[in-house]
């Protein structure tokens, strides 16, 4: 078996008396799209925060590309090739869409202690940024301040920002939330195209998207992994249906 | 002859904003009162008095004084209230060719090593005011003292001044942060130390706060307070009864018994509705000083040597009585112990208790190269 990009072992996080993630163990193979689903408040966002380093973990280990990153600062993890999007949209509202992405390019290039030269006119930053915007369908909105974009557009922008950092692993927290059907379909197409380029971990309540994209699904309930397996196994599992999917089959 | 007819310009610079504004106003008022009483003339020449606020900021003061000298071409600058402003403006004023008359601040460096032929002080050398209390405490046989001042240069000078003559035991020497509001901690210390006398130098609002709180803590009836710049006519309206019986050292008091002074106090009160403090009278004297010198030079200010010599003579009747200049252009004068009292008309003032120094010159003069 190939070495996983991400291997989590026994991860735990507690807020006061509330245990939010507990004994979470899972691994993501290179190029794989691994979906994490589960009821509201199950701890999915918390898990992503722990992996990306926004929240410190109480116990357990996180191996990223073979390296222990459990105690690493978030920006260091990002430099190692760990990118993420936020559940609650997080862009730089005063910057244009293009500049948002260009900053991400700059972050990857690593040389930001440059005090001279007009950053906004650097083709080395703008070209890849423009390409990424094009990829998510925002090319014609490049000059609009991110704060003025609609909800769905911001989502797409976040994705573009993550893309250009050429991550080894991309953590996606509900990228489809708030996007319309058309955009959802487009995002699914974009993600499908990206599959294989790098590994992804997708947290999503839109089952259409999850079953269309996932190679592997883990179900998180009350902070614990209930089940981890191929999409078909998960879909049929009575426990998952009872706790999460419900009777209304919206997908397909 | 034409030149003499030209208006004489005098620039007054004083702190007119913030809490110490009341002191600056006294300086301005005192000077303007004198000019008014002299018929709008000094030494026979029509005067234009320009007033500027230094905002208690040295760099602002420098700018304003430079403007006096360069733009307004004043012959005299009168001011300021505070020592740190004096330090800042001596150079721009005197380098610019004006004569600076300080109606209040009198620092030791200008009395000694930095003495300046173009700087005349109508007040005192700062230390002297503190020495009065020390000398009196010593002479009246006090054995123990508790002394206190704000933690800055003038504060340190004041306690040094007190100790110069007081040879008893200093139970504690306390420096409080500048502009301290609450003195409970210090009052408890005083109550615990039980000194025979307390000496404080707490100018302005600090003095008001201290005196009120000292009285409220019940100490005022048991331990006498000697002070400088803590109880005077600028703070008494706020201290009122709380300050009754507090002692201070001064070169003057409103009730000093000379005809000129009586007239001055009456006129000042009539004009400005407040009892004058030393700031006002020293600034009034500054106007008299200029007047006397210009009379001697027949209004001429161009011949600076003659003008300086005339100022040096101090040929006027000071409100304080005896007054003459030492070689460092600081006064030789008498100093008194004063005490706060309530007048028949309900107003408060300091009143002379006894003379402590006679024709007293500051010691720094020996460092001054001027002869």
């Amino acid at each position, binding site marked *: 078996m190939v070495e996983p990009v991400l291997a989590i072992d026994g991860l735990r996080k507690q807020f006061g008396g509330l245990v939010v993630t507990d004994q979470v163990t899972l691994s993501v193979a290179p190029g794989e799209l691994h979906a994490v689903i589960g009821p*509201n*408040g199950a701890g999915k966002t918390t898990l992503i925060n722990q992996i990306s380093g926004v929240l410190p973990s109480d116990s357990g280990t996180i191996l990223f590309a073979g390296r222990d990153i459990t105690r690493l600062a978030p920006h260091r993890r990002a430099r190692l090739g760990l990118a993420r999007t936020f559940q*609650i949209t997080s862009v730089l509202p005063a910057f244009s869409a293009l500049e948002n992405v260009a900053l991400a390019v700059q972050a990857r290039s690593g040389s930001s202690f440059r005090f001279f030269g007009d950053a906004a006119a650097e083709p080395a930053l703008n070209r890849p940024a423009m390409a990424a915007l094009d990829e998510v369908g925002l090319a014609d909105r490049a000059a609009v301040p991110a704060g003025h974009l609609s909800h769905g557009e911001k989502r797409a922008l976040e994705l573009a920002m993550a893309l250009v950092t050429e991550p080894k692993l991309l953590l996606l927290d509900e990228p489809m939330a708030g996007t319309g059907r*058309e955009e959802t379909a487009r995002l699914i197409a974009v993600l499908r195209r990206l599959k294989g380029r790098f590994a992804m971990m997708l947290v999503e*309540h839109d089952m259409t998207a999850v079953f269309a994209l996932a190679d592997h699904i883990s179900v998180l309930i009350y902070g614990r992994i209930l089940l981890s397996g191929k999409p078909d196994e998960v879909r049929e599992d009575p426990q998952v249906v009872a706790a*999460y999917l419900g*009777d209304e089959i919206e997908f397909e | 002859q034409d030149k003499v007819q030209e208006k004489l310009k005098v620039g007054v610079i004083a702190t007119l904003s913030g809490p110490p504004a009341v002191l600056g106003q006294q300086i301005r008022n005192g000077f303007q009162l004198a000019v008014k009483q002299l018929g709008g003339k000094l030494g026979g020449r029509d005067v234009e008095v320009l007033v500027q606020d230094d905002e208690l900021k040295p760099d602002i003061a420098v700018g304003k004084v430079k403007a006096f000298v360069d733009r307004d071409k004043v012959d005299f600058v009168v001011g300021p209230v505070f020592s740190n402003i004096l330090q800042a403006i001596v150079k721009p004023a005197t380098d610019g060719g004006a004569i600076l008359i300080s109606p209040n601040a009198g620092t030791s460096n200008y009395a000694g090593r930095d003495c300046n032929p173009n700087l005349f002080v109508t007040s005192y050398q700062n230390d002297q005011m503190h020495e009065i209390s020390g000398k009196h405490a010593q002479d009246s046989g006090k054995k123990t003292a508790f002394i206190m001042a704000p933690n800055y240069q003038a504060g340190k000078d004041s306690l040094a001044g007190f100790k110069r003559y007081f040879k008893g035991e200093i139970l504690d020497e306390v420096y409080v942060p500048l502009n301290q509001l609450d003195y409970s901690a210090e009052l408890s210390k005083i109550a615990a130390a039980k000194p025979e006398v307390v000496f404080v130098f707490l100018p302005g609002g600090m003095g008001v706060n201290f005196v009120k709180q000292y009285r409220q803590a019940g100490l005022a009836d048991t331990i006498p307070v000697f002070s400088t710049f803590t109880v005077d006519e600028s703070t008494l309206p706020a201290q009122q009864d709380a300050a009754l019986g507090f002692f201070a050292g001064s070169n003057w008091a409103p009730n000093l018994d000379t005809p000129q002074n009586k007239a001055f106090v009456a006129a000042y009160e009539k004009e400005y509705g407040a009892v004058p403090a030393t700031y006002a009278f020293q600034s009034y004297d500054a106007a008299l000083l200029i007047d006397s010198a210009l009379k001697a030079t027949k209004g001429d200010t161009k011949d600076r040597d003659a003008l300086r010599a005339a100022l040096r003579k101090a040929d006027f009747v000071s409100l304080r009585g005896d007054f003459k200049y030492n070689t460092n252009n600081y006064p030789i004068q008498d100093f008194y112990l004063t005490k706060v009292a309530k007048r028949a008309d309900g107003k408060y003032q300091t009143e002379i208790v006894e003379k402590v120094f006679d024709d007293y010159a500051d010691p720094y003069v020996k460092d001054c190269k001027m002869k």
Partner: protein
Amino acid sequence: MLTVENLQAGYGETPVLFDVGFRIGPGEIVTLLGRNGMGKTTTIRALMGLVRPTGGNLTFDGQSLAGLPSYRIAQLGLGLVPEGRQVFATLTVRENLVATAAARFGDRWTLERVYDFFPRLAERRGHLGSQLSGGEQQMLAIGRALMTNPRLLILDEATEGLAPLIRSEIWRGLGRLKQEGQAILLVDKHLDAMTRLADRHVVLEKGHVVWCGSSTELAADQSVRQRWLQV
């Protein structure tokens, strides 16, 4: 009960809505459909007085909403579940629910009933708004609007971020509300559920109403679905 005619509005100098008109009768459920950025949220904000309309008429129960501050509009009985949840981050769950609660038009919705509806909220009643998961915040936003006992409930992407199970709960709940006679204005992306639930649909495209009709008409009219909704 709500009439919107020729509504125009925008942000700053950018016009967003050009001609929006529809009406909602008592007990009706009406949806606003359209792709991202077509002006659904802006329409709702204009209704609530959060964006000043630059033209057109808005009336609720015969009373013009023009120029009314948003709290007056809300007091007339409009209850909003805003896009993006916007729960009060520094208030606890319970405080979020009771702070703006009102019983101007009946008191069907009480704290207990909301807790019954969303047991999860009861479990988390002491948490601050900011300490909730995305879905929990969404439940809270819905509960908060219900606690004002509105006559017209406005849901802007209210099922965003909710687990499928909870989502179906909500649809079922809305169905029950409809039976109780609650009027609802709905924006969502789950077309199937909405077609089942709603009486009429309004399709927005670039700030214009381009189609309007009942669920059956919508189901039948393939061209509308393809052209404006990309289904």
